C-alpha cells in the first residue's frame, strides 16, 4: 500500500471548500482515486462520468505521466507519487 497525493485544480477546489490536495492510499491508480472519492465524495462527479470513466476534458497525471496514454486504470502507484487532476486545454 503506497501513500500518494491527489492535487486538484482551482475550479474544483473552490466548490469543495478549498480542498486542493488529498492524501490517499492504494497500490494502483484506480485504488487511489477510489480512496480520494471516499475521502471527498463530492469530488467524483467532477472527475469521472456516470460510468466511472474520466470526463472527456479531464486529464490525470501520475507525476509527469499522462494516464490517458495508457489504457489501464491499474497503473501502479508508489510512495510519494503525485496524482494531478487537470482540465485539458483543448482548443481555443
Amino acid at each position, binding site marked *: 500500500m503506497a501513500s500518494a497525493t491527489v492535487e486538484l485544480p482551482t*475550479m*474544483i477546489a*473552490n*466548490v469543495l471548500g478549498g480542498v486542493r490536495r488529498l492524501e490517499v492510499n492504494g497500490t494502483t491508480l484506480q485504488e487511489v482515486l477510489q480512496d480520494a472519492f471516499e475521502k471527498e465524495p*463530492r469530488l467524483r*462527479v*467532477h472527475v469521472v*462520468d456516470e460510468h466511472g470513466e474520466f*470526463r472527456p476534458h479531464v486529464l490525470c497525471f501520475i507525476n509527469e505521466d499522462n494516464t490517458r496514454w495508457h489504457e489501464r486504470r491499474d497503473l501502479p502507484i508508489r510512495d510519494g507519487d503525485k496524482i494531478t487532476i487537470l482540465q485539458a486545454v483543448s482548443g481555443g
Partner: protein
Amino acid sequence: MGTVVIVGTEKGGFICRSENKREWTVEGPLFKGWKLTATTRSPSGRWLAATASRVYGAAVHVSDDLKEWRQIENGPAWAADSDRKMNQIWTLRAGANRHFAGVDQAGLFLSEDDGESWQPVPALNEHASRPNWFPGAGGLCAHVVLVDPNDEKRVWVGISAVGVWRTDDGGETWLAKNEGIRVAIEDKEFKDIGFCVHALAQQQTDGDVLWRQDHTGMYRSTDGGDHWTACMEGLPSWFGFPVVRDPDSGRLFCFPMESDEYRMPVKGDLAVYTSDDRGDSWQRRAEGLPTHPCWAGVLRGAMAHDGGGGIYFGDTAGAVYASADGAESWQALPCTLPRVLSIEAFTV
C-alpha cells in the same frame, strides 16, 4: 425590504442587490468559471444553486447566506448502468415539502430533504415514449417545472423538444399536454411528443391558467394544459424563449426574437412585450433600453419577476436590465457579464 437578483452566466454567478430598485450593486463572480444554470430559494430560507461545466460536470450547492456555499453529495445523477449523461441542471423548483430539478439529458429529479439528496422520478423519466424523445437546439432538457399553487400533487414539466407533461397524482403517472400546439418535430410513433416548449408561466391563483412560449408561438391554456390556444396578437414574431407573469399585476412579459433560424431580436430591436389581457394582445415596452440596434438574444431562463413589481432580464451579450414598474421603464444594471443563462429575483 430589499431586492436580490441572482444572475447565472456562462462563467459564474453575480448577485445584484438594491434597496430601492434604482441603485444597484453587483457582487461576484460566485462559482467563478462554472456555469450557474439555476437558482432558487426554499421556503426554509435556504438558497440552492446549480452549476455545470463543460469539463467538470453538474452539481447542486446550498447556502444560508448567499456567501458560504456547500456542494451537496447526492445531487441529481443518472444510474451507472444508464446510457444517459447528466449534462446540466436546467431548473430548480423549491416547494414547502418537495423540490424538483429538471435536467439535461432530460429528466426530473425530486428532493424531499430541502435539496440535500435527489431521486429520479421514474414514471416520467422512463416514459414509454422516452426512446423517441428528440433534443432541441439547447439539448434534450427538462427546463421548467410548475407546481399547482392549490395542489402540490399537480405538476407540469416542460421538455425540449418533447413537450409539456402533467401529473395529477404526485408523479406516479404523466400525460403529455400539447393539444392545440403546432408540432415542431412530428414523431412517427408517438403523436403526443415532438413539441418544443421553451417556457411556461402560471397564474398563481389558478394553476389551470398557463402560458407557453413555444418554438411555434405563444399559447394559453385555461384547463391546466389540456388544450392550448395561440395568443400572439401584437407580437412581432412567434418565436422567443421566456414568458413571465407578475403575480400582483397579472402582467405577462416575453421577448420575441426572429424565427428559429436566426434567434435574434426582430430588426435588432431590444424590446420586451407585455400583455394585460392574459395574452389576448401584446404591447412593446422599451423605454430605457438601448435605442441602437441590439442583436443579443434572451435565453429561456434569463427573465424573472421579484414578486413585488420588479422585472429583470439578461441577454447573451451580458447586459442585465431591471424595471421597477412592470416594464414601463428600464435601466441597465452596472455590469457587463458573460452570456446570461439564468435570472432569479427575490424580495428579501
